[in-house]
Every structure is written in structure tokens, then in C-alpha cells.
């Protein structure tokens, strides 16, 4: 009998203290429609579209198991509009009740050097860059795109806001969450109202602004004042995610080395292949995440290439140009 009780206690202890992966799912939307680059969205009666949306999250706190608080001081997320899943770490928790974080990077990390990290770390060197080399420091939020400046329903005026400076750090109040709890993973779902980053900005006049300007400050502050981040229940949500929205979107910030943004709906790992126009394989990677920004660490000659991404069941491909 004693042995049975001991066994039950040990089992209970293991269950309570078992490590679980915590994955933050940032479900990006544009006016309640699934986020896509290059697709028009309305903001205060003006048509716009994004070609880039990236931002840092840091200073995470999670509330779990009846009000206990855990700080995640060394966890950084580099979020992109087309990427949903962000692994926060393994924790001995059984349920998460709330989350809070800051948009941007804390002062200590912001005074550091990108080369202190590997390219795969959120704070490491990126392409397109998430830091400004001159004064150092990270871009807390980057939004690139086009706006309709002349009311012809054709967004053709570019805007490029890259916010930097410690004062841009924007704390997000605690958000109560309804996580999806699987055997080994807790998924924390948030809705990201991506269009709200740009609320109140006159996009037709901001131009290219990489600085600590009032426009960039407003963009960062919008993340809390305009409730960019909200609780989201992926199961009961009335917003239905469209099916088969797997896609590839190229970023040509470096024309000689474009970055491949891709998104698969399923969570299965993917293979990525780059071939030249004659079908010769130039690069092959397997076991990549189902969504991401892939910067090919290879020097390509000027020409046309095709990137093919597949997960064994589905395949997508896109042609892209390299200009040396």
C-alpha cells in the first residue's frame, strides 16, 4: 500500500513539475483578415500594404498555475508579420494564465553588439538588418510598405519606419490568455492587429525614417495605446483562418542576397531548395521550421533562381532575381 501511495505521489510530482515547451503564437491580422504582405488593407479610409513588418519583444513575464509569476529576462523574440510560432523556452508549468512583455529591446541588450550573437539568435546580425550600425542599437519596430497618397485607391507612395532608441520601449499590459495545452507544449495565442501599428501616422509624408523621431515613437506607442496585441482564442474565434495560404514572399533589401520569407499553414518541418534557371541545385536545406525568414548564406551570381519549399505533402515555389 505504501509503495502504491509513493508511486502515486512521485507520478503526481512528475506531472506537476514536468517541463513543457511554451510557444507564443502571434496571429497577425490586418483588419481581422489574415496578414499578408503586398495585400491592401484599409486604415482610416486609406489603402495601404505592408512589404515588411518586424518587431522585437522582450521583458517577458508569464503568470501560471494560480498566479505564480516567472520572468524571462533573456528571452527575445524577433517577430515578423508572416511568422506565427515563437518558442519561449521549457518551463515547469501546467498552465499559463497571463503574459506581459515589452515591444522593443531592453537597454542592456540595446547597448550591445549584434556580433555577440549568432545569426540565428534574434539579436544576431540579420538581413534585412534589425540594427543600425552607426550608433548601434536595434530597430524596435520596422514597417515598410506603400500608401495611397493621392486617393486613387492605388498605394504607390512608399513608407519606411524603423524605430530605434531606448525611449521606444513600449510596455504591454498583462494580457489574460486561454492557452492551448497539448501533451508537451503550451501554446499562448495572441491576436496582433498589425494595421494598428500605423494608426495616426500620415504615411504619405513619413518617407524613409530610421530614427527616434516622433513618428517612430508614435508607431511604437501604438502597440499599447491602440491595443495591437490582444488575447485570442484560436478555437472559439469567429475569425477563421483561410486554408492553403502557404506562400513565399521575397525581401529584396539586399538585391544581391534576397531574403526568403515563407509561411506554411501546417506545423511540419520543410525542405528548401534553390535552383538556377537550368534546374541546377544551388542550395538545399532540410528540416527548417514551417515558417520563417531564410537568408541564404551563399553568394549567387546575377540571374534568375527558383526557390522551392515543401513539407512532404505540399509544395510552393517562387522565382526570384539576384542582382550583383
Amino acid at each position, binding site marked *: 500500500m505504501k509503495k502504491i501511495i509513493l508511486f502515486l505521489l512521485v507520478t503526481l510530482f512528475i506531472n506537476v513539475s514536468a517541463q513543457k515547451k511554451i510557444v507564443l503564437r502571434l496571429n497577425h491580422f490586418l483588419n481581422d483578415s489574415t496578414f499578408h504582405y503586398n495585400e491592401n488593407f484599409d486604415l482610416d479610409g486609406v489603402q495601404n500594404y505592408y512589404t515588411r513588418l518586424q518587431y522585437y519583444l522582450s521583458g517577458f513575464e508569464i503568470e501560471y498555475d494560480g498566479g505564480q509569476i516567472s520572468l524571462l529576462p533573456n528571452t527575445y523574440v524577433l517577430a515578423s508579420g508572416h511568422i506565427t510560432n515563437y518558442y519561449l523556452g521549457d518551463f515547469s508549468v501546467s498552465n499559463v494564465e497571463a503574459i506581459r512583455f515589452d515591444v522593443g529591446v531592453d537597454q542592456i541588450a540595446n*547597448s550591445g*553588439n*549584434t*556580433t*555577440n550573437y*549568432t*545569426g540565428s539568435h534574434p539579436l*544576431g*546580425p540579420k*538581413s534585412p*538588418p534589425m540594427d543600425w*550600425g*552607426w*550608433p*548601434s542599437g536595434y530597430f524596435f519596430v520596422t514597417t515598410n510598405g506603400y500608401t495611397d497618397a493621392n486617393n486613387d485607391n492605388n498605394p504607390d507612395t512608399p513608407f519606411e519606419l524603423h524605430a530605434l532608441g531606448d525611449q521606444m520601449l513600449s510596455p504591454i499590459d498583462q494580457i489574460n490568455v486561454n492557452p492551448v495545452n497539448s501533451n508537451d507544449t503550451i501554446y499562448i495565442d495572441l491576436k496582433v492587429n498589425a494595421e494598428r501599428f500605423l494608426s495616426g501616422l500620415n504615411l504619405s509624408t513619413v518617407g524613409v525614417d530610421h*530614427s*527616434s*523621431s516622433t513618428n517612430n515613437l508614435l508607431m511604437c506607442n501604438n502597440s499599447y495605446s491602440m491595443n495591437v496585441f490582444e488575447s485570442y482564442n484560436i478555437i472559439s474565434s469567429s475569425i477563421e483562418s483561410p486554408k492553403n495560404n502557404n506562400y513565399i514572399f521575397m525581401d529584396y533589401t*539586399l538585391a*544581391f*542576397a534576397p531574403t526568403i520569407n515563407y509561411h506554411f499553414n501546417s506545423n511540419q518541418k520543410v525542405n528548401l531548395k534553390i535552383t538556377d534557371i537550368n534546374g541546377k541545385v544551388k542550395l538545399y536545406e532540410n528540416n527548417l521550421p514551417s515558417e520563417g525568414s531564410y*537568408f541564404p*548564406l*551563399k*553568394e549567387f551570381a546575377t540571374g534568375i533562381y527558383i526557390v522551392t519549399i515543401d513539407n512532404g505533402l505540399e509544395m510552393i515555389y517562387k522565382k526570384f532575381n539576384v542582382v*550583383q
Partner: protein
Amino acid sequence: MLSNKNNLVFLFLICFFFSFDTDKNFYLSVPAGFPKPEIPAENKLSKVKIDLGKKLFFDPLLSRDSSVSCASCHIPKYAYTDGLRTAEGIKKRTVTRNTPTLTNIVYNKNFLRDGVNPSLEEQALVPIHEKNEFDFHVLLLTERLKKNPAYLDLFQKAFGAIPTPKLITQSIASFERTLISGNSRYDQFYFQNNSAALSTSEINGMELFKKLNCVKCHSGFNFSNGQIVNNGLYENYQDMGKMRVTLNENDNGCFKVPTLRNIEVTGPYMHNGSLESLEEVIEHYSKGGMNHKNKHDWIKPFEISQSEKEDLVSFLKCLTDSSFITNY
């Protein structure tokens, strides 16, 4: 025997003039009159690291099309400037600012013309990424170096590791920290007690340098107080200087006070290379500069005769360290 004696005297003099650091891991010879420079604890110097940094510094492999290196703009014979108004990057692209000297950069606390970059290691990334300079990416550069057996060997010797962005920047910064210049005729006169090293005209010029308050900004052993100020070059600045980063109107037109060491060979002058000669620079300051609300209070008009100008220029030219610009 006499020859041996001479050799001993020579060695004694060398030891007298240059106070070599006793730390065998320091690798810098500090000239007489100079303070011991601070080396970041996270990037201590080593001989192999310095050698690797030097190889990288002179290697055009660092630019996208392998056409320009750090040394394309930081040419030793011009005290690590390039003699151009503004520098040229790959494909003859024009950089917006004049190339700053690397003379005694180990003593600098901030980097770039406007002093907004906080470390020499981070500064090394700027030209690699700038479109008008190397137009490359440090991750691609790292891959390029990984495929180069000579570099693989050097990185292994210097760090026991393969190339990484951090090790690349640390190596380059280590080499740059060795670029110490302190053996000009001024140094021989002032710090090495050689009263014959300067002519009468040069000594007159040195006195004028103090009397006209040039020494207020260009102070200390390195002829720079390290401040970032507006020197009244323009009423309206196309290049906002430090303000480009801070967006603070008080920083408009503010640039770092450069060292005057080796000034003879680092022209054209000013942040944009707009003044061709030292005579033009003196002319600018003698007029008190242009009106600008941020102009430093110390910049005021002064009277100077033609012969005094010549003396002042003579003095500035005695700050040239010929060994620094020829032995590298």
C-alpha cells in the same frame, strides 16, 4: 667595440623614449608622454589576433565584389586617410564624408565623424554593411572566410575557432588599436627632450597654437579633447552630424574634434573634405566661422599675419610622424 657601444647607447635611447609596457600580453609600445591605452577586457590583444586583423584590414575580400578593403580608404601613407574629399566605395560609389584618420584610435571613446558609434568593434561593421562602401553582409563575409584555408588557419591560431562575425570585428579592432603615432618631431621636442627637433618658426607656431586657443579643442597628447562640437563651418548643414542619429537640434552640425597628429598628410579637411589646405582651415577659424546657433563659444575671429600663418602651418606639419606613415 665602439660600434657595440653605439648600439648600446641606441638601445638605451630607444628604451628611454618609448616606455614599453612590462605586460608581455599588451603588445603595444606606448610613446613617451602618452598614457597607457585601455584595451577592452572582452577583446584583449594578442599577436596572432593583431596579425589576422591586419590581413583582414588590407584584404579587399571584405567587400562584396572584392574590390575595396579598409585600406583602400585608410591608406597608411596618408596616416590612414585617402587624400580624397570624400571616400569611394565599391563601383566608385561616393561616400558622403571625408575619411577620418585612424591615428591613435586606441585612445578614442567614440567613433565615426559624428562620434555616435560606441566601440571600435561595432564600428568595423559599418563599412561592411554600408551600400556606398563595401555593400556586403557580415554573415556572407563570414561564409566567404570559412571557405578560405589561409583564414581558417589564422582564425584557428588566433581564437581556436572558425570565423564568426564577432571574431572578425575583434580582429580588425585589435589591429587598429596598434596604430599608435607618437614619434613626430613635436614628440621629439616636447616628450623626448630634443630641443633641436623644432625650428624657430615651428616653435613660434606652437606658441600661436596656444595663444589663438586652437589648443582648447585640440588638446592633450593627442591634440583632441574628444568632444563632438559645431565648428561653424556652415550656416546650414547638409550633413546634420550627430543630429542625424539623435534628432536633437542641439547636435545639428556637430562632429568629433579630430586629432591633429599627421594633419599634414590627412587633407582635405573637415567632415566633408571641403577645405583643401591647412591655410584654408586657418582662414576659416580666423574669421570665426559661420553663424550657427550651435557653433562652439571658443570659435571666435582672430587677427593673424601672413608670417604667423606660415609659422602655424609649420608647427602643424611637425606633427607628422614619418615612421608611422612609412612603416606598416
